[in-house]
């Protein structure tokens, strides 16, 4: 309904002044850090591998994490000696239509710490990074039966953009969820197309003979 949805800043708080450069946010005892190096990769894979229905090779993890280290955010529980309790892995690049798109590839949270907003915090922080680098939208796929995931993302403003039949190897359909970060007219592909049109119009205008030229002769 008109003006019904309130836009508020929720999610984790920013890093404290005495936090290291890798820390990107906090919520209670949970500290959220950017990916550091290969030494974390084994734990990340172990955490994600448990929950995912699809098999990923180590190259897939490296593709994301090495390509977009600031879009890989890890949750550590300071009350449990900095145990890794959650991770999100994303990327950002241009779609076929040249829209700058953030993609959430993987999200996993320690099963003993569910429903403590760790998942939504990780997603929120990742989207904030995407906004900071100028993404037009954030996208992910999830099984249509994964009600918990859909609730999490829809509570953050994601909508179901498409239904993908038999998307997963287990034959289950998927929803492509999308969070639109910019209005249509501000998206990269639209801005680029508009700029192209303006440049073409300018070239055309410049190539036309001026109105006074004929009069002068």
């Amino acid at each position: 309904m008109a003006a019904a949805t309130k836009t508020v800043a929720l999610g984790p708080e920013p890093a404290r002044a005495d936090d290291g450069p890798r820390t990107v946010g906090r919520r209670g005892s949970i500290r959220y850090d950017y990916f550091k190096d290969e030494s974390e990769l084994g734990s990340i894979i172990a955490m994600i591998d448990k929950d995912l229905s699809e098999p990923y090779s180590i190259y897939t993890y490296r593709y994301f994490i090495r390509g977009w280290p600031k879009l890989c955010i890890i949750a550590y529980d300071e009350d449990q000696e900095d145990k890794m309790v959650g991770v999100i892995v994303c990327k950002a690049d241009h779609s076929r239509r040249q829209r700058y798109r953030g993609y959430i590839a993987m999200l996993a949270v320690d099963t003993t710490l569910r429903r403590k907003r760790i998942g939504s915090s990780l997603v929120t922080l990742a989207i904030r990074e995407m906004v900071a680098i100028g993404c037009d939208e954030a996208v992910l796929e999830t099984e249509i039966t994964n009600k918990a995931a859909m609730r999490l993302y829809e509570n953050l403003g994601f909508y179901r953009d498409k239904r993908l039949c038999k998307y997963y190897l287990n034959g289950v359909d998927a929803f492509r969820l999308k969070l639109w970060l910019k209005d249509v007219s501000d998206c990269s592909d639209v801005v680029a197309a508009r700029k192209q049109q303006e440049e073409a119009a300018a070239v055309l205008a410049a190539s036309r003979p001026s109105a006074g030229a004929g009069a002068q002769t």
Partner: protein
Amino acid sequence: MDGGEGEGGEGERGRWQDATAEVGALCEALGLGGMVMREGFTLQESMNALELMSPKMDTGMNADAYEDLAHRLAKGKIRVPVESLEELDWVAAQVLIRELAWHDGHLLAASVYACAHLCPQTQSLLKPFVRDLFKRWQDQQPDTPAPASKSEKRSATANTAKDTSQPFALLEDDTDEVVLASVSFVLFTSIIKSCGVARLCIRRGDIYEEEDWSSQTFGLPLGENSDVPGTLEMINFAQDVLRAAQASGRKAFAGKCERIAQHLLFRALYLQALHEMLRPNIEGWSTAEKLWAQMAELVPVVGPASVSDIEPQERWKAAFDADIHRKLLASAPPRAGPTCETAPAQLAFANFIADMQTACALRNTDTLFAMYNALMRFSRRTPSIVVRSLVMLMLYCENELAMGRIAYEGWIMDDLQAYGVPVHLRETEECRNYAKFAVKHMYDVLRMLLANRARQRRNIANLLPDWAAMQQEAELYDHMAFVKANPSLPRLEDMTREQLRENMHFYMGSWATEWTIRLMLHHLTLGFELDLYNINEYAAVFWYGQDLMARFLANRDETTKFNMELLNRLTRSAEDSSLPKKAQRSAAARCVGLRKLIGEQKTNIALVKERLCVEVERLCLDGLLRFVIGLAKAGRFPPPQLEFGSDKIRYNHRFTPYSYLAMPRFLPYESFAQVTNMENYETRQLLENAALFLEKARSLLASAMKAPNMTDVEKAYFKALFKVVISNNVNVTRALESVDKPLPEGARPHVEAQFPSAKDSCFFPVIVSKE
């Protein structure tokens, strides 16, 4: 490694080079987390990489536990040939379940060929049993005469000396094993061949997407269309052998021959039907229709459920294992195989045959709009890719005619006539040129309806920009056609506004707008069916939907109104003695044509029904819109608190596909916000209005369901919509009763959408307020 120097250098495509030295050197320089990779290493390449020995990815991982088919046969875990006709009966039904799974997108190797009996190694074991018997049978068959010339016919001599008067009989040497092997071989061969012909149908139709059907055969054999006559001959052989076995009184064949004969009959009919449907220009479709009708009678007899009284032995079940082809499937990540439950498979089988019968009946469709409606109904049944592919072949035959007989141009011209374009405009070259221009776009619309439901929505979003172009072209052609058909009138540029309004109507433009709105409404309602809408966007969807429906009705009404006014003006002109006789005659002739056109429109049942449906649905959406706004106003629908995006951004993106169009004009967010601003309304007023609209919808539906000329499908839809309207009305009444009461302490109100009539293809929601 691209551009590598030294011994290896940059390799040519397809030439192996040893890169050990280069990779070794690069690895020496790697830091922690470093990776040697080709430039442009993409996500697709990383996803396709297999980690060897990973059980999640490496299909061949548990090699120790794997026994290939040769081992299983050698150990007697699978017996070839089958031991009894009862086993064959059970096996045939199980293969049918997997065949349907293959149609549904499962890998051939994991579905049909999960049956060991069909595998080439097993079939080759049967050949020695069959060879001699088949030859003896063939020798006994009457020669099939070659097409004779007239002179050969005149001097025809007696037939060859084959004795075809006696039925085929078995000899003592033809053991039970030989008989079972022969019949099995033929039945399994016919299954393989029919899968091959089905594959040909799908490839020729060329509408499948990766989720519809997997074209990978992994080298497993399938038949070709040219194999059909030979396979039918073999089926005849098997049927004769069964008859002979029964006649011989052998115990092993008492009681079950008939069932196997029916399996064989089904396969013969199925092969013949597909073969007929592949003939050019749908020449064989009327024959195929009869064959499908015969197959429909066999559904209870040969379907998966027909063997539910048989208790399979363990050795029978051992012949079904998708793991048999683990080595073949090792290059792909492990996928879930078909579930193979009997009841759903029986239903799928019955639906498959019924869908084929429906597909055959489509060829008798005469008008474009009727075909559109028929395909809309057909698509809701979610037919298999085999059926959809054949319908595609019907829609675009080798001579580029629909159903081998209708030119799309002519179809479009007829549709323009049905819409209300007068004959004096239709006769212009401009109108014909527009119809030619519209052919591809109209064909794309029909093709879109043969995609799966999720793809249809995406395809419509891709079609709408094309229809924007259709509208632009239509306006141009309207202009040109009008000028040509009315030479006595001033040029359009010289006409006053009143003259324009009186004389000019964008007929072709309005026709294009009507089709555009049809596509948009289909796109919108598919969103409900596919469960795409968040409850928070229902108000926008309802609002846009009811507006589209209003514009659909207004668009058609404008054309009808213009035609009536034109008729009045022409009638006056025909009777105006001050005009030249030629002008009077011309006006009179146009009157006749226009009167006939208006009469035809009033009696065009399809258009009248469509109008009724749109009116009812519009009332329903109007009611639902007021209901959800009323609930929001009453605090039963708290808005989500979001950090990212805004209502406006989400609205604009959701309805972006509609923004390409000139007609209907895109409804901006500001209009939606203004109309649905809760501050303009009282809660009770909103809910009461909701009830009013829903009651109007209910009343109109009640009369519609009693109207004559309603088909069973239409009645079922209206009945389903009726239930939705009643349920919503009940919920509105409940909301009215509780609207003034405060919410209980700690209550977390929310609103849900339920779809109780989805099975009747009615995807209008029932809105339920919960606490």
